[in-house]
């Protein structure tokens, strides 16, 4: 039999923590039980409010605010409603109604969230209860403006697995150069920002030479392909601000293509329109036309099409590829990471995907802090944009088209998006590596991958079939793209299915059963193999180790 599992050196399980906490809290036990808390999370206040549920009408409840979350429990007997919202998802808090407001439930707070919903609470006009709640929420949802730490630095959660160990750049680059090298034809995908050509058409000998060297690393074809993610006109316009694109004269061994993907502002506005048609009420009549008018799926299509071109150039065109947009950290990251997902099955595993995100997004300087605005109160900041969400949407579209190709399931993608905003983990904090190093993020915060990798089974796709050298080209036609309803419209109870992911639930049961049977079979084979030591004396006797198999069927 396999060797006995080695006991963990420091196995602080979550349960231990919670027991300690309740005994420490003592008097507050009832509240402690009403309110789930992470180690390091402290309760600030609680209040009786009316939650104006857009689907079921006003519900009386008690809201608890901690330094991490807003938690509401219904006080009505016929409603089991619970809201559990990390403060990190809050983008904006507004007061509604004034001292003279008369209508029922017209005085309170309206909270806009980054995850496609709004929360409205009605409060009593007397006793400053709204002012208190507004101030506390503002302080803890936007800690940066109040010289408070982001919650990730207070989080004391412990996990069996250390997610910061998932990505080791040195190891990854031993496997791959930047960003990816084809295992057979040795062509590469590289990324950079736009050249600073400007109106006068500046050139740079070293840059031209560098690209030529990249071209020469691949002996099969004598042209290098440069993909500029922007629409052609934007690239030209960028010359006015000192940017631009590679001219034919300067880079005569290179071919340049434009991929027509729009900038962060266009994407932000597009997602805003999606929210308009799905929250709180979904557009009923002419739903598809309304969806079309948001252009969201069209943008998804362009990003996927661009990535397919990059992947195909490398795989079939046998040409090395350089990808850039203006800055090289938004559209470029989308294109290279999606192309790598198409080309390399390794990135379709759970760990591979974590490494891909860590490498192509976090490490290469996608400006998460600016795009998401962690702990920042400036909700109208023009730097905010759902670029990473768009990437995850593209991954979801691919996983729909190739149900067996990805080790992870939809829940995995959704939990990543939830914690993109939550500020519970350090993974997506800050704009670049240098800021992260300065803040000692890996030492002082927990990685999201710790949570996921300690609980991998929950995020596994039961259909997954490992294939090594399969290149996936999704169909990027509008006909085969659909709105990710389970993410964008997940707050609407009318869209929900009978139970959460029944297929997966059933599958996990089946898989678990299969694993049990395989194990039992192996054990039986062992038991049946002739001339084995006497089972009654052997401590690891298969018959004693026989797992108890539960039959669900």
């Amino acid at each position, binding site marked *: 039999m396999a060797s006995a599992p080695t006991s963990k050196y420091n196995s602080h399980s979550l349960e231990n923590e919670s027991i300690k906490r309740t005994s420490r809290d003592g008097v507050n036990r009832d509240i402690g039980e009403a309110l789930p808390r992470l180690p390091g999370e402290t309760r600030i206040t609680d209040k009786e409010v009316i939650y104006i549920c857009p689907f079921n009408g006003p519900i009386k409840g008690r809201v608890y605010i901690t330094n991490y979350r807003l938690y509401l429990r219904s006080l009505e007997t016929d409603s089991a409603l619970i809201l559990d919202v990390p403060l990190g998802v809050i983008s904006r808090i507004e007061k509604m109604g004034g001292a003279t407001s008369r209508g029922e439930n017209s005085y309170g707070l309206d909270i806009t969230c980054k995850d496609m919903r709004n929360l409205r609470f009605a409060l009593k006009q007397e006793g400053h209860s709204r002012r208190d709640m507004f101030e506390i929420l503002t302080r803890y949802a936007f800690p940066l403006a109040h010289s408070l730490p982001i919650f990730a630095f207070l989080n004391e959660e412990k996990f069996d697995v250390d997610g910061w160990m998932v990505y080791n750049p040195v190891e990854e680059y031993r496997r791959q150069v930047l960003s990816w090298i084809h295992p057979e034809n040795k062509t590469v995908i590289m990324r950079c920002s736009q050249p600073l050509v400007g109106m006068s058409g500046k050139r740079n000998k070293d840059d031209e030479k560098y690209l030529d060297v990249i071209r020469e690393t691949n002996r099969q074809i004598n042209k290098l392909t440069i993909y500029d993610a922007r629409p052609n006109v934007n690239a030209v316009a960028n010359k006015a601000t000192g940017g631009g694109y590679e001219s034919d004269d300067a880079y005569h061994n290179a071919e340049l293509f434009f991929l027509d993907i729009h900038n962060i502002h266009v994407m932000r506005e597009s997602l805003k329109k999606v929210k308009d048609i*799905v929250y709180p009420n*979904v*557009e*009923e009549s*002419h*739903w*598809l*036309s309304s*969806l*079309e008018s948001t252009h969201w*799926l*069209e943008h998804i*299509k362009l990003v996927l099409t661009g990535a397919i071109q990059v992947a195909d150039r490398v795989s079939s065109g046998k040409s090395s590829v350089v990808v850039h947009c203006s800055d090289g950290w938004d559209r470029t990251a989308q294109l290279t990471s999606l192309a790598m997902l198409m080309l390399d099955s390794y990135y379709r595993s759970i760990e591979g995907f974590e490494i891909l995100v860590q490498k192509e997004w976090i490490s290469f300087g996608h400006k998460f802090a600016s795009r998401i605005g962690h702990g920042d109160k400036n909700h109208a900041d023009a730097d905010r944009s759902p670029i990473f969400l768009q990437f995850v949407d593209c991954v979801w579209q691919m996983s729909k*088209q*190739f*149900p*067996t*190709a990805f080790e992870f399931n939809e829940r995995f993608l959704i939990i990543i998006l939830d914690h993109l905003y939550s500020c519970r983990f350090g993974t997506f904090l800050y704009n670049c590596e240098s800021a992260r190093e300065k803040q000692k993020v890996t030492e002082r915060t927990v990685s999201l991958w710790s949570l996921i990798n300690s609980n991998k089974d929950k995020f596994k796709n*039961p*259909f997954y*079939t490992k294939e090594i050298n399969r290149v996936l080209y999704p*169909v990027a*036609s*509008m*006909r*085969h793209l*659909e*709105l990710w*309803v389970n993410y964008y*419209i997940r707050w*609407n109870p*009318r*869209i*929900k*299915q*009978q139970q959460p992911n*029944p*297929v997966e639930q*059933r*599958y996990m049961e*089946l*898989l678990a*059963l*299969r694993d049990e*049977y395989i194990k039992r*079979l192996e054990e039986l084979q062992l038991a049946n193999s002739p001339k084995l030591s006497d089972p009654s004396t052997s401590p690891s006797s298969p018959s004693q180790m026989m797992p108890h*198999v539960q*039959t669900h*069927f």
Partner: protein
Amino acid sequence: MEFSELIRTGQAQAELLRGPEMPPLRGTLCVTGHHLLLSPGPQATPDLWLLLLRSVDSIEKRVAGDAGTITLRCKDLRVLQLDIEGVEATLDIARSIEALSSLESVITSFPFFYRPKGLRLGEAWHFHPPERYYKRIARETRAWRLSEANEDFSLCPSYPRAVIVPRAVDDDALARSARFRQGGRFPVLSYYHAPRGTVLLRSSQPLTGRQKLRCAEDEELLRAVLAEARPGARGFIVDTRSAQAAKQARMTGGGTEAKAAYPGWKRLHRPLERGRPLQESFVRLMEACGDPEQSMDRWLSRLDGCRWLSHVKEALSTACLAAQGMEWEGACILVHGAEGTDSTLLVTSLAQLILDPLSRTMAGFQELIEREWIQHEAPIFLLFLDCVWQLGRQFPLSLEFGEGMLLALFDHSYASPFGTFLCNSEKERCLCEVRTRTHSLWSGLNQPKEQRKLRNPLYVPNPLAIWPSVEPQSLRLWQGLFLRWTHPPEPSEVAWEKVWQIATDQKTEGSQPTDSASEPQP
């Protein structure tokens, strides 16, 4: 008549193009009485390609130089292109296909000639006789009886010989009621909802006409339904026309039940499209799906404009309404439109799938189709299948059959070697001796080798009603059908295979495989 008179040519050399994802086939083309054959020679795979001529919907021919091209649009939505050597040969083949594919006669159709190995004639026709279902209800309720008043199809040519009616109503009253309903389709039981003791009935419109005629026996029949259900029971009449259309029908002799004449019954109008508008919607959808322009920017608004998904939504909502009436209000439901043969069946059969776990088993579903669907070749049956597909997508564990079953039903309803979908009524079927001279589709589908394609390996019997979400966001285009020939199904087939692997591993090694005994019993 001899088929040979219609076949104008022996054979020709041709190349067949089957769509963007499949390699062309080159070989000898030949027309037989029922098939178009292409034989690429013994080394090729496949070594023979066959198309049932009945499945050809329209044919276009073009000649240029000394060759020609025939484009066939099939009823299963495929578009095939044949490049043929020789102008004469092309025209002859085109004429032969045209003549043979449009033959009207039922008894010369392929099912009357199809004699596959391993199947015996007459074998599976008794799998799902409606009588068995009706007898069971008559036994269980004591309020209903099996009537043979329609034994010679004189009351209603489109009803089967045996129908189930309230025990309190005698055959003479049935005959009068039949005369008061269009096409003789008097109210009969479609489904008995045992948990609430309520029933689902269907009929055609009453012939009230301009003079607002009444029929005492028809009124008595519906009164008896409520009385048998429960003292003081209520009923809803779900009219699948708008109130306006129902009123207008009086001008042409039809109409609707007057409130005063049917105490306890309340009329609800839920207009469903049928006939031409539905056909047009379907054609527009087919055009949109078949458009070779892959990167259409206006796809979504075009899909919206087809209105097909709105029809799906309306059908499902109306079925939900009928089902809710029975399950939540404990009411009896009568569904009819005008003829009571298209949207009526759509509503009654979907309501059963929502409420009745038995109808969601393989055998139960086949029985449901035998009982409710006598019409075909109308997009309304496709609409029904699409609605069932949506149910299956929203409740992936609750149907014992999978998408493969729905696709097979779609294909066979248009062109099939089996006789199940032949003819428009029980009367015609008897005249043509369909039951003794052709094979039943169920005998074909219930063969073990077909099961993997048709069954849902995830099925777990679900005793509850399944209430679908009918929000437009919850309804999807059925890609497996509408985009079947433009997009390779390979990834989903791989996934399906994987599902089966895991499920069968579990079954063969499992200690107590409790396969829900859904094989049809003789």
